[in-house]
């Protein structure tokens, strides 16, 4: 590994042929953070390396969330029994190419990673009662073929619209392609009114795919309970607020809401779910 990559290896993992699952902590609906956290919890992930933050994050102070000082973290975990490496990080604000190559350096040179799975979320204007989909963008035709037996939307066409930029996930997928590491960027559309909340259904969608693909043998009963609870909470909002029920009914009928109605729906759902927690 090149010395210029600021990676600290605490303990070298013993892996023969592993897969890397990567998620960003402050992703939409905290999907990347939740999925990687769940994998670490269920598969007893052990931290073994980290990327030093100074080149990649603005370190002018700390942010405070839920009364706690936060600091950027970019950590690698190993789940040895399943030949799995998990990387969870805040998304860097500078030197992206160097940061993403640092991840793949650790993956290739210390973990013998053969496949890359990147987790991402996108906004959907569907209701939460619509089953979650999992969209896949791959970096090689071979990877597309390998994934053909799974329940994925695999034929997406997309071009960056004017005024927007590609995601960090796409940037990483492209770098992995250049390094001949087969990879897939996974995207779950999340109902817009849950984008700032957690979406257990979306987490389960990604985790179920990873479970099947990587043979992780995870029992999802706790996550199923979370999904049931969230669905019950959302049903309560609908029964207590007829206007909210009407908005969600319209979304279920594939009708668009006005900007004002979208805002009202988001506000009410977020307030209710926060009060319920």
């Amino acid at each position, binding site marked *: 590994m090149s010395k210029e990559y600021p990676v600290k290896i605490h303990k070298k993992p013993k892996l023969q042929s592993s897969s890397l699952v990567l998620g960003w902590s402050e992703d939409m609906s905290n999907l990347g953070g939740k999925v990687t956290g769940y994998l670490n919890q269920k598969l007893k992930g052990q931290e073994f390396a980290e990327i030093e933050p100074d080149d990649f994050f603005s370190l002018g102070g700390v942010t405070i969330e839920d009364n706690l000082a936060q600091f950027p973290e970019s950590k690698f975990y190993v789940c040895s029994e399943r030949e799995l490496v998990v990387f969870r990080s805040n998304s860097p604000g500078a030197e992206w190419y160097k940061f993403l190559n640092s991840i793949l350096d650790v993956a290739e040179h210390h973990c013998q990673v053969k496949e890359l799975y990147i987790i991402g979320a996108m906004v959907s204007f569907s209701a939460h009662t619509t089953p979650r989909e999992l969209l896949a*963008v791959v970096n090689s*035709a071979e990877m597309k073929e390998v994934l053909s037996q799974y329940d994925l*939307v695999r034929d*997406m*066409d997309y*071009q*960056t619209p004017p005024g927007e930029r*590609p995601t960090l996930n796409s940037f990483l997928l*492209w770098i992995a392609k250049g390094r001949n590491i087969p990879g897939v960027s996974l995207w779950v559309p999340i109902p817009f009114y849950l984008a700032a909340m957690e979406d257990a259904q979306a987490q389960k969608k990604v985790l179920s795919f990873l479970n099947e693909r990587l043979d992780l043998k995870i029992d999802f009963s706790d996550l199923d309970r979370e999904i049931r609870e969230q669905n019950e909470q959302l049903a309560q909002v609908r029964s207590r607020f007829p206007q909210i029920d009407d908005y969600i009914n319209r979304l279920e009928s594939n009708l668009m809401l006005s900007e004002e109605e979208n805002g009202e729906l988001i506000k009410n759902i977020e307030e209710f779910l926060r009060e319920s927690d």
Partner: protein
Amino acid sequence: MGIRLYQEPHLENPILVAGWPGIGNIGIIAVDTLRGILGAEEFGEIEPWDFFYPKRILIRKGVLEYLEFPSSKFYFKRTGGKDIIFFVGEEQPTEGGRVYAEGKKAYQMANLVLDVAEKFKCRRIYTSGAAVALTHHTTKPRVWAVPNSESLIPEIRGYRNTVLMSDIEGRGRHGNITGLNGLLLGAAKKRGFEAICLMGEIPVYLQGLPLTYPKASKSVLEVLSHSLKIEVTLDKLDELDQKVERRIEEFYQQIPPEIRGQLDRLKHMTYDKPAGPGPITEEEKKRIMEDVERFFKKRGEGG
């Protein structure tokens, strides 16, 4: 991080002309227009990934086909004894959310451009950008020039419609050039190249608008082509200018009449011969600036 040359053309006494986006895109339009008119041929680029975040992605049937970065390209044109290398950068490398190039990355890029200049034994470097000035959009923009060597001053004083930045009244022989234009000028001085930055004037009230200002690009190109002793017709810039001028007029009519009245006085800002009701005093200049700032602040707040 480096330079990729697709070919190494043999060039005689070349000069290098560099342009990047900036206020009104004055510099890049001037440089890219000249490059287009002369039909210069692309021969290399600065590899982008260490400098820029990607700008576009194409996914076809679920497969990532390509990721496109802002380009930083070199072109050459043989003109018979005074060949030209063009460097056209689609973006300036920025750090920490700044608008214009600053810091280590920008300095690295400036030096990569100079590496190419050195390789081809360029005798001079021109950069180009914008000079925010108390002028009116209906008047012909001047060109502010800044050399990096004393020996260039007499030559610049001979350019038409050009003023040395340090000679401009009220600037106390000082000034600064932000972004890569300034940085390249300084880095060139450090490495022993002579260099001149040519900046076309843009009215102070247009600097924050998402508009190009081809009128100033034309002024820069007139000076540049004179300096390079090449003849070019600038009809395309005139066409572009007419289109932009209409949009500027629409904007101008939205400015409250009392401020517009002050701005109208800028039409009489002349440097050679006072015209109309007479030159603007320093106090009036100050008042105009305050009015303009107040208007844009109010506009930015949605007022």
